[in-house]
């Protein structure tokens, strides 16, 4: 399936869910926040979130800034 992840189009295996996507990038849910189709998800809410064709996913984190 095709999704937009962090602004780039990505081809992912069908059936991969959000937690799986994070795991694939070795990202601990603890340190990131996800925006899934405009909905903001914190770690607890990420469980069992399915991904499907055309979804827009933003995976963000806090970094050094002023």
């Amino acid at each position, binding site marked *: 399936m095709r999704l937009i992840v962090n602004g780039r189009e990505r081809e992912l295996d069908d059936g991969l869910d959000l937690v799986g996507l994070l795991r694939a990038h*070795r990202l601990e849910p603890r340190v990131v926040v996800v925006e899934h189709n405009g909905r903001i998800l914190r770690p607890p809410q990420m469980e069992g979130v399915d991904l499907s064709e055309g979804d827009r996913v933003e995976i*963000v984190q806090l970094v050094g*800034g002023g």
Partner: protein
Amino acid sequence: MSIVAHGGNGTPASPGGGLELAGRTFRSRLILGTGKYPSNQVMAEALEASGTEIVTVAVRRVDLSRSTEDALLNWIDPERYLLLPNTAGATTAAEAVRIARLGRAAGLSDFVKLEVIGDERTLYPDTAALVEATRELVRDGFHVLPYTNDDPVAARRLEDAGAVCVMPLGSPIGSGQGVLNPQNLLFILESVSVPVIVDAGVGTASDAAITMELGVDGILMNTAVAQARDPVRMARAMRLAVEAGRLAWEAGRIPRRPRAEPSSPREGVLV
């Protein structure tokens, strides 16, 4: 220029008191950014040396192409420092609101440093967009700390929109030029009743002292510490300078005179 205290009188509401924001009191009047340090290790030591209790952070996309680097949060204890996510990167009210919400989800606090940039060259804010974004974020339960310019009219509009403080710039972000127009900061102090925190421009310790002597409630800085040759030493210098400037404002400086006034008595001179 006459030094005008916050609220218009010559003495502070509470000598030695702390910085109050949205009902919380902070002993330190210095807020530090976390960007542009040589390393996370140096950053952590600088935060320690500065005595700050509030640190700003940015919200950014994870770079999925690189192996996950050492997360900033591994170096900052949220029990010790209030995390203040900013909306850096936003150029419209809508972008700022979106970033603020992501920051809240990540930072686990309702405090947000609001930035809406109106010009890339100067990184000056778009004050109309700031007012609009402040209204929406306040409706959404945020405590909004807006980075604004030194216009007292815009400052009052932001207070009216519900900002918990106003954060006028002293000079362009990262420019290290200090306060280019102290009088405008004095006008802002007269125009609003919320705390005034000078955000951006401080280059060295004396800039921090000068700024506090105007009677402002606090200072937010990043580059001046992070990019100093010795960031930890500069962080200590800034801590002392902010305290020195505040104490001097509370103590009431002598007037400037064009002429000399002897320090030793004129009487009893041997001739």
